């Protein structure tokens, strides 16, 4: 994957993040990691940028400004979704005033008739500066992708399994009758 050939100028867009990812982005540009040696430059206006470093779960309040800032970036543009919140809404994904990360934002963009830009996901809460630099290198074609697509299904908990066993036993003993409704047992207290 090679999305961009030359130096990448980035604009940092915070859509309601907790600052964790934002500070790590600045850390990536600070002397220890020094992303500027890779031609990355933080610019003050979206009109000067090639890519957006996008953080936060997109709150309703920030939405109009975020949409306008993304529209202000000239084509072709790349979005780097930095952090768990930007990638999928994070811990806030189903809150009442959060759109749920960059996918929620793209849904709004599509409803407005705007095609969503190419996106690189950098997960982590917050991702380390090295991970952010890896994302940038990926856009430049200097590094390869680390993760393949995989799907995850949550295994059924012991309480659910016990309930199913109980139902099977009931059917064996009383064939043709509906089992009585039992309240599902919640998972116990998480132990640390």
């Amino acid at each position, binding site marked *: 994957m090679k999305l961009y050939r030359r130096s990448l100028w980035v*604009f*940092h*867009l*915070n*859509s*309601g*993040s*907790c*600052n*964790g*990812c*934002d*500070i*790590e982005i*600045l*850390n990536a540009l*600070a*002397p*220890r990691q020094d992303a500027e040696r890779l031609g990355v430059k933080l610019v*003050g*206006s*979206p*009109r*000067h940028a090639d890519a957006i470093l996008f953080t*936060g*779960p997109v*709150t*309703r*309040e*920030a*939405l*109009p*400004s975020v*949409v*306008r*800032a993304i*529209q*202000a970036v000239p084509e072709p543009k790349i979005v780097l979704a930095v952090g768990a919140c930007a990638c999928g809404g*994070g*811990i*806030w994904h*189903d*809150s*009442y*005033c*959060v*759109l749920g990360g960059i996918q929620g934002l793209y849904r*709004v963009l599509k*409803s*407005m008739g705007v095609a969503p830009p190419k996106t690189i996901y950098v997960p982590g*809460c*917050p991702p*380390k500066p090295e991970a952010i630099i890896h994302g940038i290198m990926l856009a430049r074609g200097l590094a390869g992708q680390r993760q393949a697509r995989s799907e995850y299904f949550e295994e059924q908990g012991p309480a659910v399994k016990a309930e199913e066993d109980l139902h099977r036993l009931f059917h064996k003993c009383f064939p043709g009758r509906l089992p009585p409704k039992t309240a599902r047992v*919640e998972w116990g*207290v*998480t132990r*640390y």
Partner: protein
Amino acid sequence: MRSSGINQVRPRNKYELMIDLRRFGEPRLRGKYLFLSRIKSGRLRDLVDYLHWRLGGYYSTSIGVDERPLDGYFHVYHVFVLEEYGVYVLVDLIADPGHPVVESITPVVPAANWAEREIMDFIGVKFRGHPEPHRLILPDDWPENVYPLRKDYPYDDKLPTSDKIAKLVRESSPATWEPEAPGDHTVIPVGPYHPALHEPEYFELFVEGEKIVDARYKGFMVHRGIEKIAESRLSYNQVSFIAERICGICGFTHSTAYCQAVEEAAGIDVPERAEYIRSILLEIERIHSHFLWMGVAFHLLGYDTGFMIMWRLRESIMDLAEELTGSRKMYGANIVGGIRDKWDIRDDKAALIKRMLDEIREEYLKYIPKIISLEEIKKRTRGVGVLSRSDARKYSVLGPHARASGIKTDVRKYRPYAAYKYVNVEIPVLDDGDIYARMIVRHEEILASIDLIHRLLDNIPKTPLHADTSYIPERRHGIGCTEAPRGEDLHFVITGRDNKLYRWRPRAPTYNNLLSVPAMLRGEYLADAPIIIASIDPCFSCTDHVVVVDLRSGRRRPLRTRGVVGGR
């Protein structure tokens, strides 16, 4: 007989205070909390006046709770901190669900303005006599009469974004958008995305030539519904992790304050070793936050070498945090009742941390005393953005901001928590009240914190890491206070059933400190505005509020949603 309270004998301890407060309602003392319910009609403002202005306490925050499932009413709690008596006074007001109106205390205590408007937004209790009962937090396209913190509102009910947003985006292109200016001043919009701000916040500065005459600001772009999520789908121990996500800089102090609040409510005694580890992590967080602030301050002063030096030094602190907790930020160490097992500080690790701290201190002292004695730095910061001691009292500012204005305040010293009970905490206080004083206070705090970590590591006792928390009683109130890098951080909880909170309300220090910004901006040069705003070390993701202040008349107005792309 209705006495005004002036001729009364001042109560000497909390028991006399309780008897004294019988004039106003029905007091009930439970440990550190003095509940005052059934306030006699028409006596609320007298009571607030007595607590806030006569007894030497201060107004902290207000919490609205929907307790209809429990007793059929909405409750509003006003929290007052009376350090002298060692109690929190909780004034408990009841609102009938059919006609939810209570009396406002904002005319007596202006600091209650935001908190009361927040309750109007979220719970739907109206405040009689509030000077500006407008919407504060929720977005402009949020429908009327939908109150998200009521218990009958589902936390994941995503209202469809109205056409208004698409319309707004279409119409407010930069070419057609003009901010309204009072009089004939020039308006300088700053934000929400601007090189000088790293968070989405929006300021409007009104200038005459180079002088700022007026300022407005608008926030709440980071409102993520954290209170509702915590009350709806998280258990006690999970909330301490979401509490850390309130802020990416000072998260651990939020999680500690939350845990302390639940421990207070449930009467859990935290083992000493856990208290020491909490304090050590809190001090590491304070050092990295102050390093970060110094770097940003130098950057805003145009001294980028200083910025680079500070951020390079800060990486060593991040290494330290990674060594102790496994992550650079979001330590994830706290649970209710103590510290998680794997976050123990072993002896070999303690020795390593001490060695690293010595290196950091040496490196720090090599550069910073030279940088802060530079003439250029002094000229840009001395006598700029001055906040006098009396103004600081008026806005009840907190933390290093207050200490730079000559107010001796520090939760660590005067209401000690965690391991600060066992060690002496030095707090630097300066009287100048300018940006230079704030810089020096933070500089001294960094050195004091490094010493403090050394002392804590020396005395760390051998006890278990967490207490038994299998039983947390229902409907108990608790308050947890910590000294965040920016000031006092207060968390209020009511415990519920099914291993869940009934209500949780965090209050961050920037909430109070932001109010003082317009006072500091008045009459200053435009070029100094970024460093003046930054000098309080604002953390908007913690605070997130809207206020509009007219500096000339002191009047506040609401501001409509409008975005402006930075760099215009």
